[in-house]
Structures are given as structure tokens and as C-alpha cells.
């Protein structure tokens, strides 16, 4: 394990950095929610955001696909680049960006449509399929990536809301994957799931790492330790510490990280 991390680190040259944020500030009206955060997120790796609730993890995550644009009072400053391109540049269409940066939410939120239509929604909107056969193929591929194909292949036209919580969340992951994103943002994707469903989703996240750069917000430190290679610890809007997961959990530098991990703040 130690060796692998060393390898990862050796490989993390400039090209491997998928997302880089510099001096990011977020305000909700008067409330300064994110204070001067700098972070570099690598490709094909799982990065976990941890920290006590209200520290700004979700807020920062939503900066990466500009979901904060949908909140009237929210103001984002600073510079966030994906593959070197400033996503807050006036020429960038947030709608296109969100196809490239998929998002999975805390509570499974399948649309009240069939399983098939849930997955086909994104590809249809972005015109990814030329015909029905292609669309079928995309849907199947996404459902396989979401590790739910076998469970739903016989009832693709049943409503997505009829699935169990864990299945719904994997459906939502499949839905996000269907638009061929490069980055997958997950905001506490397991907090509404039972332990078995959580284990399934965690396994899935580990597989998704092959193809995507995954950023996951979690309030479970065990989960962060299990699924991520990098961990960022947020506290009161500040990014306190960022580094290899193993290091953060075994040998944190900042006393605040140390006390959060040992359960003294949170």
C-alpha cells in the first residue's frame, strides 16, 4: 500500500491534475462560507472531503460544477480550472460543464420516470445518441458501470422510484455516468443508505476510479479511509489539510485535523 502511494505520487506530474482551485472564496450573502481554498485534484483518483458539518464541503463541491449558480445569493470568487480551463470564464456554458462534471446527491433522487428514461435523460439532452439502438447501448453501459444492470435489466420500464434506496443511488450514479463525464462529484452519497447498500456503492466508487476523477464528500471517516486516495479536511470554511489519505489518518500535521479524526471536534 505504502508503495502504491509512493507510485501515485511519483506519477502526479502536472498533466495528472484534473481540477485546480486557487484562492476560492464563496459567500452566501454576508456569510463567508469558503475562505481562500487552494486545492489540486488528480485524475483517476478518489478525493475525499471531510470535516464537521457546515464547514463548507458541499459548497466547495458545488463550485466545481457551478451548481452554486442556481443559488441566488451565492457568490463565488477565485479561480477553478478543469484541465487548465477556467470554468468560471464567461465563455463557459455551465450547462455544458455539468455534462462533463457529473454529480450524485446525498439523497437518491431518481426522476419519477422509468429506470430507462432516468438514465437516458442526460444523453437525450446532450444529443449523445443518434438513434434508439445507440441510446439503448448507452443506457446499458451506464447501468453496468453503475453496477445495477443485473438487478434492473428485466424491468427497465418500471419506475425508478420503485427501487430500494441503495438501488436508487446506484441508478443515480449510472444516470450521472451516462453523460460521459470526466469528473464525478458525490455529496455524501451513502448517508441515506443502509450498511449493505453503502458497501455496494463504495465498491462501485472504487471501480469508477478507473475512468473518472471522483470527489466524494463524506462525514464518515472510515468511508474516506476506505475509498479515497487523497483527503481534504475542511474546518469553518478553511481547507486545513490536504494530502494522502493514509497520511491524514495516521499522521496529520494540523492539530485540528488530529482532533477531528480522533473525534474531539465534529
Amino acid at each position, binding site marked *: 500500500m505504502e508503495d502504491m502511494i509512493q507510485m501515485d505520487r511519483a506519477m502526479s506530474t502536472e498533466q495528472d491534475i484534473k481540477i485546480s482551485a486557487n484562492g476560492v472564496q464563496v459567500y452566501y450573502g454576508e456569510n463567508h462560507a469558503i475562505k481562500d481554498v487552494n486545492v489540486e485534484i488528480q485524475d483517476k483518483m478518489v478525493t475525499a472531503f471531510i470535516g464537521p458539518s457546515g464547514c463548507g464541503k458541499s459548497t466547495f463541491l458545488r463550485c466545481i*460544477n457551478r*451548481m452554486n449558480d*442556481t443559488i*441566488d445569493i451565492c457568490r463565488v470568487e477565485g479561480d477553478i480550472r478543469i484541465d487548465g480551463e477556467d470554468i468560471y470564464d464567461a465563455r463557459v456554458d455551465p*450547462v*455544458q*460543464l*455539468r*455534462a*462533463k462534471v*457529473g*454529480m450524485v*446527491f446525498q*439523497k437518491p*433522487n*431518481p*426522476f*419519477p*420516470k422509468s429506470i430507462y428514461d432516468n438514465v437516458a*435523460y*442526460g444523453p437525450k*439532452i*446532450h444529443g449523445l445518441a443518434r438513434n434508439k439502438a445507440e441510446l439503448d447501448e448507452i443506457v446499458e453501459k451506464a447501468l453496468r458501470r453503475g453496477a445495477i444492470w443485473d438487478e434492473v435489466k428485466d424491468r427497465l420500464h418500471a419506475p425508478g*422510484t420503485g427501487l430500494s434506496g441503495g438501488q436508487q443511488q446506484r441508478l*443515480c450514479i449510472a*444516470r*450521472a455516468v451516462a*453523460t460521459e463525464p470526466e469528473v464525478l462529484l458525490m455529496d455524501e452519497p451513502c448517508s441515506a443508505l443502509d450498511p449493505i447498500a453503502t458497501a455496494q456503492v463504495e465498491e462501485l466508487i472504487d471501480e469508477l476510479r478507473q475512468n473518472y476523477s471522483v470527489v466524494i464528500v463524506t462525514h464518515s471517516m472510515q468511508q474516506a479511509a476506505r475509498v479515497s486516495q487523497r483527503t481534504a479536511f475542511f474546518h469553518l470554511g478553511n481547507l486545513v489539510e490536504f494530502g494522502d489519505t493514509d497520511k491524514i489518518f495516521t499522521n496529520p500535521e494540523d492539530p485540528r485535523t488530529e482532533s477531528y479524526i480522533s473525534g474531539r471536534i465534529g
Partner: protein
Amino acid sequence: MSNLMLVLIVLGLGAVGFVLGRSRAMSVAGGDRRKLHSLPVYYAAHVGLNTIVPALLLLFGWMIVQPMIINSSVSGMIPASAIEEGGNLSLLMSDVRRVAEGLDIAVTQGAMTVSEATNLSADADNVRDKLAAVGVALGSDVTTDTLHAAQRYRAMAATGNLWKSIVAIGAALIGMAVALRLTAVAFRARNVVERGILMVLIAAASIAVLTTLGIVLSLIFNTVEFFQLYPASDFFFSLSWNPSFSGRGGGSELGILPLLWGTLYISFIALLVAVPIGLFAAIYLSEYASNPVRSFAKPLLELLAGIPTIVYGLFALLTVGPMLVSVFGDNGALGVGWMQGGTAVMTAGLVMGIMLIPFVSSLSDDIINAVPQSMRDGSLGLGATHSETVRQVILPAALPGIVGAILLAASRAIGETMIVVLGAGAAARLSMNPFDAMTTVTAKIVSQLTGDSDFASPEALVAFALGITLFVITLGLNVIALFIVRKYREQYE
């Protein structure tokens, strides 16, 4: 003693019972409330309720029964000859009651002493003038028979009232005593009081249900009576509505179809106006409007729902009708000459549509708002634009609820009367031209029952048959609408 006074006394006794019950409970517990089964306030409420409820029930029962007994006994006194003179018994009895009340008023105002009032004679004293002096106007001179009956009425009412007071107050006192005796450490006062309150709640609920039932039953009985005078098949299938004026009788054609056609045609046009406008307004308000705009525009739109329909009717008659004629009339802007007069299906339909806009928009707005934010986030997070999100996720999710809202609006449209009376005319007609005057079921119910109508004639009774048909239609729509709305609610729970 007046009834109000009695009620106040009973309530006062109840308050006394409340206090006594509390102190009795504390004393049986030796001052330690923990020994009691329930909190002291429940013992207090138990005594209070036992004092008030039976006494008031008795009082109300008495108030219903006493006039019936007195009426039947007094009307037995009136000789048959007097009934012939006075027209009929019920008219005479109302005279009797008026005289009796007038005498009571005279006594309370001090215009007569008690003995004067009891010893009046119809021949010697001019009772009519005397009563007129205290503000009770009578239609004719008071005959000896009437005066006797009135005196008898007063005497019976006086004893009745005395006994009523005794019984009510007695019941209150007995109730209080029994409840106080029951108060003991182990007595489950809370359970008893809660059961009592449950009864009150059930009674309140049954009043609503029973009233509805009563209305439906009266509709049914009258309709049955109508169908005995007029064949049901003609009513449901005849294509013409042509009642002869009451009095002459016979020869009326009372087919519902032309009226139903008018009703449905006007409602259809109204929905054609209200549904798109209301729905678009709802989408704008719930999805696009900024908070200040929304908080200003929504109440404004809902204000439309507060305008009395008669005002809409005037608007139809005085503004919309003439406007339409100036466009579609003989010398109108289009020169098509489709419209002969201001009153038409189109006039009423347009105005009714405006009236329905807030129904559709307000309900749809609520329903669209009830679609969880997570649906919007999910769609936006996949890179859908706002309008794609609205069209492909929010509206489909809200659709069942919106259909429910539209059905509720439809049942409103079908039951609407005033706008039709003023805007659509009174001619029952089966025509396709929306610029023709037509009329609806509701408008015809009004016209069949206004004026001097004899309630035993089919021309009047048809109103009940029309009413029940309308009731069945709107009930059906409401049931379907509620069913859909409820099913939709479950989707997100």
C-alpha cells in the same frame, strides 16, 4: 328567563364545577397530586363537562320540543270556522304567535301591566292599535279566537319556560353532584374527559356529514317526485327545453340535453382560456419569478378569485359582450356577422376562464413547488437547462396534481351561475356556434325557481332533477380530482 341567560347560568355552574372538581380532587388526594390517577385539571374538566353538557343538551332538546307541543295544543283550540276565514291554519297560527309576542313585548316595555295583558278582550280593547304602539304591526284586526289562542299560547309558554329553567339548572346541579361524587384517587378522569372530547369532535364532524346527507336526500326525494310527474326518459333524452309558464301547466318540454350542452360548451371554452394561462402563470411564478415579484404577483392573481362572480357577470355583460360583437358581429371589424347579441357562449366562457385562472394557477403553483428541490438539482446537475428541467422533469412530476387542479376548476365552471345568467343569455339551444346565446343547467335552475312558482309543479320540481344531475357530475369530477391529487402526494412521501 331567556335562553341566553339560561345558557350563561349553566356555563357559570360549569365554571363553579370546574373549581370545585379541582379542589375536591386535591382534597381526596390529601393535597398530593401525585396520588391522583390523572392531573387535577382533568378532574376539574370532568366535573365541568358533566355540569354543562347534559344540561345544555336538555335545554336545546326542550327548545325544539316545547314550541311543537304548544303549537299542536293551541291549534287544536282554533275552531274550524276561524280557519276558513283566515285562509289556512298555518297563517292563523303565525298571527297567534305574533299577537303573543306582541303582548310579551308590550309587557316588557311597560306599555301594559301583566294583568292587563292577560285580561285583554278583543271587542273592548283595540289590540291591533295597542300592539302597533309598541312596534308590532299586525295585518288584520285581532279576533276573539286569535286573542284567546294567543293568551293560551302565552300561558303555556310561560309554564314551559319555567320548567325549562328548572330542568336545565337541575340537570346542571345533578351532573355536578354526580361528577363530584365520582371524584376519587383511582378515578380515571383523563380517560373520561378525553372520551368526552372525542364525542364533541365526532359530533362536529357528523354535523357536516349529516348536512350533506340531508341535502342529497332532499334532492333525491324531490327528484323522485318530479319523475312521477314527468317521464325520466324525456328529461334525459329530449332535445328541447321549453317549459310552459307555471299556472297553465302541461305541455312543458323539460329536456336536460340543451342545458347540459350549454354548460359543457361554456365550461370547455372557460378551461381553454384558464388552463394555458393559469399553467403558464404558475410555471412563471414558481420557477422563474424572483422572490419580490412572486410575493407581489401571487396574491394579486389570487385576488381574482376573491371577486364576486356577479361582478364578473357585469364585466361580461357590459364589456366583453359588446367588445366581441364589435369584432364578430354583423357590422364588426371582421365583418363575419357570426354574433347577433352580446350574450353568447363565447362571452360567458371567456369571462369564466378569467375567473378560473387563479384556481388553476394557484393550485398548480403549489403543486409545482411541492416537486422536491432534489429533482431540480438532479436534472440541472446532469447539464439540463432550466427550461429542459421544467418541461421534462418538473411538469411530468407535477402532472397528476395539475390534472387534479384542472378538474377542480372544471367542476367550478360547471357549477357557475352568475356569469352565465348575465353573459350567456337565457335561450336553451343546441348549437355549435360559440357566438350564439345559450344557457346552462344552473341558470335554468335559477329561472325555474324565481318568481311565483308552485313547488308541486313539474316546472319547479325539475330544478331538483337538474340540481342532482349537476351534483353527480361535479361530485364525479371532484372525486377523480381528489383521487389523482392524493395519489400524486404519495409519490413523494
